[in-house]
Structures are given as structure tokens and as C-alpha cells.
């Protein structure tokens, strides 16, 4: 099995523009951003959530708290994998009770990560509301999960992989569509 790059889905500039637009949408649909907090899912949801908070601050002067969630312990496939995945820290230094949470991730695919994230958040308290924001929705859901805020929707086949590469983690900035070929 080899992985080949098929095409670029978003450039650095397009990622930035998309996040600006989504940041506005979040504020518009959050009644003045009162009690609003962003939760970035490790790994690439984290820089995305931080960037969204930064742009919300730029145009509203509101400081939206940002937390980091690691979903490893909540995965539903742990009993089928051999080596247990490494657990990372969850870093949410505010109470989630009665907060208006927006969970941020890079790609929405099967929906299983989001199910795990919601379980993780409920272990920390009882949020008032949880919504989901993703940079890319690529379809192929296996659970009834939909995002409230979507950067881009794209059609993919299930052998394809959407790779979001972010400066903070990957030292480059773009979204690629790659394919696994036998």
C-alpha cells in the first residue's frame, strides 16, 4: 500500500479565510458569545481552536477560553488494537458546567471521534450546549453526528485521506487529498 497525493483542497490563504468566516458564524450564532468556550481535539483541533479564539478576540474583544481534549481513553476501538495508543493530557482549566461549548476538530469523517469527545466532556461536567466546528466535512458517517460550523464540505471515496497540515504541528500550511493505492 502506497499513499499518493491527489490534489490540494485548501491553500494556506484559504484555510485562513475559512477560519475567519467560521469565527464570525460562531459569534453570530452564540448570543454575544456569553459562556462561549472552545474545545480543541488533539491534535489538530487544538491550533484550530486557538486560531478561532484569536480571530474572535480581534473582532469582538471577547476572550473566549480554549481547552484541549484528548479522546484516547474514550476511543471505541481500544479492545481491538494491539499496542495501546499513548494517552495525552486533557487541559481544560475552566469548569464546563453550563458552558456553551464548541468542539473543534480538523476533519469530520466517521463521527466516532466526536462521540468520544462528548463522553470525555460529560465526565468533566454538564455543559449547557455542545456544538461542533470542523475545517473539513468529508462524509462517510458511521454515527448520527453532524457539525454546526463547517469550513468546507468535500466528496471523498473511503480509500482517500484528507490531510490537514498546520504550521503549528506540521511546519506547513495546507489541506491535501491523498489516496491509498495497492
Amino acid at each position, binding site marked *: 500500500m502506497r499513499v499518493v497525493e491527489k490534489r490540494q483542497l485548501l491553500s494556506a490563504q484559504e484555510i485562513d479565510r475559512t477560519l475567519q468566516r467560521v469565527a464570525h458564524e460562531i459569534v453570530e450564532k452564540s448570543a454575544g458569545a456569553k459562556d462561549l468556550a472552545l474545545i480543541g481535539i488533539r491534535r489538530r483541533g487544538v491550533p484550530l481552536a486557538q486560531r478561532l479564539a484569536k480571530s474572535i478576540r480581534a473582532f469582538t474583544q471577547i476572550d473566549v477560553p480554549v481547552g484541549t481534549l484528548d479522546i484516547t481513553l*474514550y476511543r471505541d476501538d481500544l479492545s481491538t488494537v*494491539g*499496542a495501546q*495508543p499513548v494517552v495525552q493530557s486533557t487541559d481544560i482549566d475552566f469548569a464546563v458546567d453550563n458552558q456553551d461549548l464548541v468542539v473543534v476538530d480538523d476533519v469530520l469523517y466517521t463521527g466516532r471521534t466526536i462521540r468520544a469527545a462528548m463522553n470525555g466532556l460529560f465526565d468533566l*461536567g454538564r455543559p449547557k450546549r455542545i456544538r461542533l466546528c470542523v475545517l473539513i466535512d468529508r462524509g462517510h458517517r458511521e454515527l448520527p453526528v453532524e457539525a454546526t460550523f463547517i469550513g468546507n464540505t468535500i466528496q471523498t471515496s473511503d480509500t482517500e485521506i484528507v490531510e490537514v497540515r498546520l504550521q503549528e504541528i506540521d511546519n506547513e500550511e495546507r489541506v491535501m487529498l491523498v489516496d491509498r493505492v495497492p
Partner: protein
Amino acid sequence: MLQPLRHLLGTEELTREQITFFLDQSKPFQEFQRHPLKKLATLRGKTVALAFFENSTRTRISFATAAARLGADTMNLQAESSSLKKGESLLDTVHTLEAMRPDGIVIRHSSSGAPEFVARRLGIPVLNAGDGTHEHPTQALLDALTIRDHKGTLEGLNLTILGDILHSRVARSNIHLLGKFGVRITLCGPSMWVPRELECLAPNIRRSRRIEDALEGADVVMVLRVQTERLHEPALAADEYIRNFQLTAERLKIARPAALVMHPGPIVRGLEIESAVADGPQSTVLEQVTNGLAVRMALLYHLIGGAPAGTPHPAEG
């Protein structure tokens, strides 16, 4: 590349990389202890056998709580339970437990080497919860985690261990573990409990006859429990031990100002340690207990989680 770890039998056979891996993996579980809801479903459907052939309260409760918080079930075998009194052999007992299909077994036994003996004969991961005077690896890992949290690193620290080193599996596991990180270790206690042979356990070990010399420059002071059953006249009287080896507030001043005072528990106040020191600002006694949960959760997650035996195992990646 991290070496796979199937069993946890002792710290002697762990590599620095494996130790660092498990200390790092304990961090998210330390944070988990502060969650309002302390219940995961991560190991749901897994069963951990707790086979305590020797009495234990704190270690058994810690393992049982760690398993429960990960969502695993436990089956309990306690020293006072009947089958052991009826003369069943160790091997028959663990085969009986194995027949109930646990996914891992935690063993405490008064014979050194019992966990290894069992590990060779069972097809499931074995975790040593203390064997004779050999090792108590989870205690050493939780101690190392506590030290690292306070000092930032293990590298190059000065550690002083006080008490009955010879009979202490806690001391042995700590010496093996910390010795791998270049910790300079000073052993101090009555001479019959600190024989010269102990210097071979790790590089950089020295023995000291006077507690005042042993405490000089210490970053960490580890006080062991004096097993009162080992104190008897005329070999050694309690008042003599107190006079020569008790860690008092006055003596602690000889150590470095921010030196940690550690004790694996249970504490005998007024014997090996003065109450004021056990409760003092430098004491990490209760923090060690909390860290024990985190370390044991990390170990259970990696050793017992995942696909059943036969598939490549934890901490290999």
C-alpha cells in the same frame, strides 16, 4: 524504539526509556484524579485478578481503585482467605484464578520471585505488587513520579534512604530505578540492615553510619518503615533506633532546604520519623498515595488494555 513490556516484575529489568514512558503516561492519569467524575470505560469488560498472598491494605486498595476508575472489574484473593490456609500451592491458586479468565493478574507474595514464577506459567500479564524482599516496582515508579514533579528531573539528584534497607523491597526497587538516572544514593541505618553488598545494586551508592553525614546535601530523603517485629533486644531497641536514626525536624535541616521527605507508608510516628516531619511542608506522603493511583492506572491501561494475548502488546509503539 521502546521495548515491549508484557509483565511488570521489577524495576531492575526496565530500561530508562520504559521508565520515562510510564512516568510520562502517568501524567494524564494524575490530572484525571482531579476530575469530578472518576470513572472511565476504557477497560470495560476487562478483569484484573488481585492476588494478595500477603496482607496489604494500601497497595491492594490502590490497584483496585485504579482498575475501577478505568472501568475494569476485579476479582479479589486475600491472604486471610480460606484456600491459602488450606494448603493450596501458589501454582494451583493462580491456575484457579486463571481459569476464571482474567486479563491480568496483580500479585503480592512473601516469597521473592513469586510473580516471575507465575509470569512464566500463565498466559496473561503479571504485575508485581511486592514480592518478599525483592521488588515493589509500582512503589518505585510512583516515588519517581513524585520526585520528578518536584525536582523537574531525576538526573543527578542526591537521595538518602533511611532504615532497614536490607529487608526493604521498596528500597531495592527505588535503588534500581533511580540508579539508572544517575541518582547518587546514600544508605543509612543500623549496620546489620545496611550491609556492604547493597553497594552493588547500582552505581553511585555509598553507605553512611551517621544520619547527620547521610543527610548532608540530600535532595530527597526516603524514610522506610521500621518493621517493629524486627526490633528486639538486645540486637536493637526502639529507643536506640530513635536516638540514632529517627528523621527529626532538627536533623532534616542538614539536608538541602527544599529536600523532599518521602515515606511509602504505613508510617510509625515517633519511631522512624518525627510527627512534625511526617506532617511538615516537605513531606510528600499523601501525594505519593495519589500518584500511586495514576501510576497504576497507566500500567493497567498499557499492560492489560488492548486486544487479548497473542496480538502485539502495549508500550511497543
